[in-house]
């Protein structure tokens, strides 16, 4: 029962933090005077929103890696697919305001001399369909990939390598112009979302708040999953896969289910990311992006959910500062951080913090118990 109350406290902290951010950032941006130290400048709002998207992405990786032992080094692919699904919608919203002023075709298609919209762009101008694609596209890829990988009992480092190959293959495919997604340049020059201009401060604030809400709901979903009996089976698979199988659980079905849920969360993160950064291109599929996600989770604390959020925020804030101050050293710092965490803090910031806290509590309990026994002796 004790662990349960600790977890609940964690949920309160996470939700409280996100609710606070969703309320305070708009206040400090809009209502606090510009020269005040508390003022959140306009350019910071989408940056913070981007961090929240990365946090949701990290959460999706923690769900499969931390709780089911599936180390995906290709989760950036699901993020990018979600991003592309949203990018297609935003592209269609441009309409005749594009450089070539074509009423239907996005600029890059006009430039490539395409006469009509490819079939997979149909319906992308309808927001509900776009939202559906945001979760369906990554979900279907995860289903196809996971079906073969998990049924063939590919595990461990081999699975990691083929996830990496998957995202690399997608990157190469999306680089090609005839793939139909803008090739090298990807999708960009967005104008508005649901009729609201993307450059406007208010739209950016709303996107920030929506990101915070999505992260909060994503966290609650993951928390619910890992605390159900389903989640206990996941941990059982992580720790003793064969044993779980001999208990009668079809391990591959569990892995597939959680992999799809995770891919959908990653897709959602990508969809929220794209309107805030204003571009999606094949670079998002790059293998190193996917590895970075794993580092966020490892730094924050694998298998804790809140740790993934914390790790994503801390590492990305560090990255923003570093790439501004010492751009050449960022990759060294990131690599060094990963080595440091793996060697000295294998449980990440949150896990190590929890350990210290437990030890302190134990010590204080001992201190409390000691006088009681000495009194009893008298």
């Amino acid at each position, binding site marked *: 029962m004790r662990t349960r109350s600790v977890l609940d406290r964690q949920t309160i902290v996470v939700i409280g933090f996100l609710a606070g951010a969703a309320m305070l950032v708009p206040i400090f941006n809009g209502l606090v005077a510009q020269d005040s130290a508390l003022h959140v400048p306009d350019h910071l709002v989408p940056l913070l929103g981007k961090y929240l998207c990365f946090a949701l992405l990290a959460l999706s990786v923690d769900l499969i890696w931390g709780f089911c032992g599936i180390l995906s080094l290709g989760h950036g692919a699901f993020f990018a697919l979600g991003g592309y699904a949203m990018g297609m919608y935003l592209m269609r919203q441009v309409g005749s305001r594009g450089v070539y002023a074509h009423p239907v075709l996005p600029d890059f298609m006009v430039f490539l001399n395409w006469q009509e919209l490819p079939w997979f762009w149909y319906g992308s101008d309808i927001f509900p369909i776009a939202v559906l694609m945001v979760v369906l596209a990554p979900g279907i890829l995860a289903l196809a990939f996971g079906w073969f990988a998990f049924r063939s009992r590919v595990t461990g480092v081999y699975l990691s390598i083929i996830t990496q190959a998957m995202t690399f293959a997608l990157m190469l495919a999306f680089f090609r112009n005839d793939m139909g997604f803008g090739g090298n340049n990807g999708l960009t020059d967005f104008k508005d979302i649901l009729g609201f201009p993307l450059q406007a401060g208010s739209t950016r604030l709303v996107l920030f708040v929506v990101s915070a809400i999505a992260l909060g709901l994503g966290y609650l979903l993951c928390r619910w999953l890992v605390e159900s009996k389903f989640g206990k089976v996941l941990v059982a698979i992580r720790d003793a896969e064969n044993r779980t*199988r001999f208990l009668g659980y079809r391990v591959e079905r569990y892995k597939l289910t959680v992999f799809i849920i995770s891919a959908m969360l990653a897709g959602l993160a990508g969809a929220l990311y794209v309107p805030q950064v204003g571009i999606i291109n094949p670079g998002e599929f790059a293998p190193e992006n996917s590895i970075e996600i794993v580092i966020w989770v490892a730094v924050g604390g694998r298998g804790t959910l809140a740790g993934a959020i914390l790790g994503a925020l801390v590492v990305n804030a560090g990255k923003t500062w570093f790439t501004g101050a010492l751009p050449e050293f960022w990759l060294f710092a990131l690599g060094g951080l990963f080595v440091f965490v793996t060697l000295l803090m294998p449980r990440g910031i949150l896990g190590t913090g929890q350990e210290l806290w437990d030890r302190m509590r134990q010590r204080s309990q001992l201190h409390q118990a000691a006088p009681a026994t000495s009194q009893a002796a008298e």
Partner: protein
Amino acid sequence: MTAPITPALLYLDNITVTFDGFRALNALSLAVDHAEMRAIIGPNGAGKTTMMDVITGKTRPNQGTALFEGSHDLTALDEAAIAELGIGRKFQTPTVFEMHSVEDNLLLASRSRRGPFSTLFARQTPRERERMDMLLDRVRLTAHRRRKAGELSHGQKQWLEIGMLLAQEPKLLLIDEPAAGMTDQETADTVDLLRDIATTKAVIVVEHDMTFVRDLGVKVTCLHEGSVLAEGPLDAVSANERVVEVYLGR
């Protein structure tokens, strides 16, 4: 050729398993009845573990028949399906879920629907909780129910694993070296527990410890080089010249 219908609960006939030319099982035949306890002995490499692997679906035999309840073909089913039929297995080294509490270990093992969607919405019923209490009591872990399984002693883990087996409500239990690493008292208690279980379920015990096998007092099958060397009461088996030869070296 149709499979012979047999009254035996477990029926293995002419099972052969080869790994890269090495015959781990060589035309092995064995039948175990309902509510029978059988001890399997044999030197290292006799094929005891491979036999368990065949019964639980981990290894597919190259040839032979393996029937459960006279009609289920074990060679055509996967591990999960065989577990659901009612065959539970305890491994040689205790493999419990170390990060889960003792109670959750039993809960995961307990007989219930195994699909992802069933477990997602599963709720513990009062009847299940009652059963948990009973099981915890039976394997003497009531006081440890909330502890992580990883914190238990070796003997306790062995018992927890037996408890997990029972929670599955199998018809046949395969138990690999239950007494390994146990104190004398724990070993004696384990004998009692297994004899108690065998009053209602079939149990196959693989064991090296001869005193333990003697205490069980059941029919013994001695394996050697993948086939049955001798079968019968322990005294008869241990008096068998070939058995003595195999055990004492050629």
